[in-house]
């Protein structure tokens, strides 16, 4: 892999930037240095067709003058002059901007907790040949399953990420980590019928992916999505896989617990701390320290220690998620939920690892309990949900009809409509097959009385 900037270099860049900003007249300053080195091998239409390496590093600076905030960034780190020019831009932006009377300062320095299973030197040492091997295993496994399966796209990617933050309150911290993932999207094709995209993947912080399983599973899904039928319109039981759940929750529930949304009257949960908002089966933590979590880091985008925050406890709403700004507004402490898009953005409130605690039953047992219902793997159109009210109207695809405790056949053209906040109250069971998808760590969930619109 390309030589990465070391811990000391990253910290120096950030600390020097803060010093320079203060010297040039900032009341407060914060610098966030980021680097990402990513190597991928890409599968395209049934073959390994390309390999890419992306090196991205840069520095983002927040400068505060008389409560007005300026931000600037650059990816030109080699030249001191370019970095200083960027810092001056943050200052000039602050001067041009308007004061924010509710600004209560950057976060103070706090003791960080250590995190586990977030870095693996084996990932850093991988060559593109190793990734080609893994991609090839995945592809072969998929093709062996059935002739009707077409591997559309996928690949294997390995990343090394590091971040350093410094601010004028003495915060100075560095953390680094690795991520490896493999994924495959497939189609089933038979006699003029094309299935929707079927997708499987693994993502881990340690070198522990199983490309063969991903290939096999993506292919198995495509085969079972063939011979799809339309179903009747009615209210019924629906099992959501983690993909579908992540899609649905990301645009609704996860926003509803962010302090930004609550404070701005955009959350259906405003004023509902202590109230029952979900079925008793539902307990959710936002766990920024989750072992091996995709979004596990020692500190958030403002240098605040990440932590485990209880969000919903046996159906009762307990806490919202805060960054430094929203927390101080309520006289609280940040929950370590400030996220950044690398060096390119200012911090925003975002969930870390949104962990829905599993139940006891296997997924097969969960299906076995359903006399009549639907198993939904993925949703189309979840981003068009009403984020404030939680109302959604989406396509379930791929999805399978469940009859008498068994998967009967694939469905097509099936829509689901309803309200996520009602849906949370109708979760009757959770399986024990927890996995990480995006921000979500969750099992399959069984929901009663979901409106299904078919023919």
């Amino acid at each position, binding site marked *: 892999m*390309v030589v990465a900037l070391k811990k000391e270099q990253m910290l120096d860049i950030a600390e020097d930037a803060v010093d320079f900003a203060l010297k040039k007249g900032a009341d407060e300053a914060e610098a966030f240095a980021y680097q990402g080195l990513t*190597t991928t091998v890409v599968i395209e*239409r049934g*073959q390994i*067709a*390309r*390999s*890419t*390496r*992306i*090196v*991205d590093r*840069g520095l983002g600076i927040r400068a505060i003058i008389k409560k*007005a905030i*300026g*931000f*600037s*960034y*650059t*990816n*030109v780190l*080699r030249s001191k002059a370019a970095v200083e020019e*960027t810092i001056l*831009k*943050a200052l*000039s*932006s602050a001067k*041009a*901007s308007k004061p924010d009377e509710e600004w209560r300062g950057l976060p103070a320095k706090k003791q960080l907790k250590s995190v586990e299973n977030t870095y693996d030197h084996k990932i850093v040492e991988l060559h*593109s*040949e190793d990734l*080609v091997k893994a*991609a*090839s295993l995945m592809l072969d496994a998929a093709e062996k399953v059935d002739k009707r399966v077409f591997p559309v*796209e996928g690949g294997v990617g390995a990343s090394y990420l590091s971040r350093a933050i410094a601010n004028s309150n003495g915060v100075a911290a560095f953390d680094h980590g690795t991520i490896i993932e493999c994924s495959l999207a497939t*189609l089933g*094709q038979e006699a003029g019928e*094309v*299935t929707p995209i079927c997708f499987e993947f693994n993502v881990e912080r340690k070198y522990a992916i199983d490309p063969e399983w991903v290939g096999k599973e993506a292919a198995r899904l495509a085969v079972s999505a063939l011979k799809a039928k339309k179903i009747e319109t009615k209210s019924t039981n629906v099992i959501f896989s983690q993909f579908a759940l992540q899609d649905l929750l990301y645009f609704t529930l996860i926003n509803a617990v962010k302090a930004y949304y609550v404070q*701005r*009257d955009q959350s259906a949960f405003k004023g509902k701390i202590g109230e029952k908002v979900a079925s008793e089966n539902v307990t959710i933590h936002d766990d920024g320290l989750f072992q091996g979590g995709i979004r596990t880091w020692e500190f958030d985008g403002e240098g605040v220690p990440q932590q485990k925050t209880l969000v919903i406890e046996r159906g009762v709403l307990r806490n919202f998620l805060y960054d430094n700004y929203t927390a101080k507004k309520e006289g609280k402490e940040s929950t370590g939920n400030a996220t950044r898009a690398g060096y390119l*953005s200012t911090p925003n409130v975002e969930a870390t690892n949104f962990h829905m605690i599993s139940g006891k039953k296997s997924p097969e047992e969960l299906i076995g309990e359903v006399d009549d219902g639907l198993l939904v793997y993925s949703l*189309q*159109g979840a981003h*068009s949900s*009403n*984020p*404030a*009210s939680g*109302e*959604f*109207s989406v*396509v379930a*695809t791929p999805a399978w009809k469940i009859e008498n405790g068994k998967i009967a056949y694939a469905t097509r*053209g099936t*829509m*689901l*409509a*309803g309200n996520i906040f009602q849906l949370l109250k109708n979760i009757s069971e959770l399986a024990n097959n927890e996995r990480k998808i995006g921000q979500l760590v969750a099992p399959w969930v069984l929901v009663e009385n979901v*409106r299904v619109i078919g023919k």
Partner: protein
Amino acid sequence: MKDILSKAVNVAVQKYGAEYAEVRGQKLFKTMLTLKEGRAEAAKQGIENGAALRVLVNGAWGFASVGTFDVETLTMAVSDACKMAKAASSKLKKPIKLISTKPIEDKVILKPRKDPSKISIEDKINTTLTMNSKILGYDNRVKSCTIDYLDLTGTNYFINNEGSYIEQDKLYVWSRILATAKEGDIFTFSREEIGSTSGYEVFDVETPEIVGERVAKRAVEQLKAKPPKGGTFPVILGPNVVGVFVHEAFGHLAEADLTLSGSVLLDKLGKKIASNLVTFYDDGTVEGAFGSFKYDDEGIQAQKTLLVKDGVVVGLMHNRETAQKFNTKPTGNMRAEDFRVEPIIRMRNTFMEPKDHSFEELIEDVKFGYYFKSFRGGQANLDGTFQVGIQEAYEIVKGELGEPVRNASISGNTLETLFKVDAVGKDFELWPGRCGKRQTVFVCDGGPHVRVKEVLVGGSA
């Protein structure tokens, strides 16, 4: 710049025997603002300089990107790209080939009437503040207002080993406005986007007052709206919804990389897939439109591409690789979000051609149905399943517009639905937006008002 970039190309060809090599350079400057309820969250400025190297070695692609123009680093990166292409080629079944094209040398200089890089941040803040006041002042049930603003200026450089060298100025002005309203337990949500490649003068037409009122009014009117009935109904789609439908439900299937990946259009070239009233274009040449540019990121001139004519599929959107497979010409649809990523086939300004009906004529025969005026989001699958969420809708009762309806969405199979288009309006609108296909690019979508005999409406009532 040309010297630096051509050195990298030469290394690829001479040292590693690349069949093809290109370098894209980018020097861009961005200004961004986010206002929440009039509070300037931060005024932001950023520099993004870098180079992307793409090579074809032994029939496989290698790609590397670096945030610098330092010759030594570029040489290392191009070596990297060539070695990676070789590694990838070890498992290749069919070597990748490119259709040959004529080399182009050109310099594209933009002369905007109002260059955003010459307008002060104070002015930009004031524009967004005016919009904010209009929205929050519209009605006290409007609870929140988020305004994002972005402008991007700079130059892109393109060189390849076939003799092309292009310098092309870039300019984008974009804003997204979100408002929410609340009454009792009812929340509503309204979104608009402004986007232009001509300059800051876009705000002379889409003034803060006009856009502000449009966003706020919709959020408030939706408060009294009711949920739609679920089921199959005749619908009138407004230009904004037609645009997203053409883009999502049809356009992606006609991106040749996705067509080859098995989209339902694969065996439909030259065949009828829609009613006679349906003609679609993807056009990179609409002046000032958000999806327009002169050359794509593979050095090919953008054109107006006819996709569907009178219901028959006549074209796809191609890069040099897919054009070779179909033995046709590339259409200038290769776009990369920035230097960090590879170009892929993307849409530009995608629209349906207008016909002859007035709005009144479209609506008069509908006994009960829906008018879908503005979309919230849309998505499609390769099998032709589409979903479009609607942010502004009305009932149609006995040929007239009725009560507002909220949180509706439509779904179906693209090809089945296109045959059900039974009347097309004579008006035309093009709406700016952003499209995500692993990367984000700026586009426009549009068309006239369109009547569809029946479509599945997802509703909770």
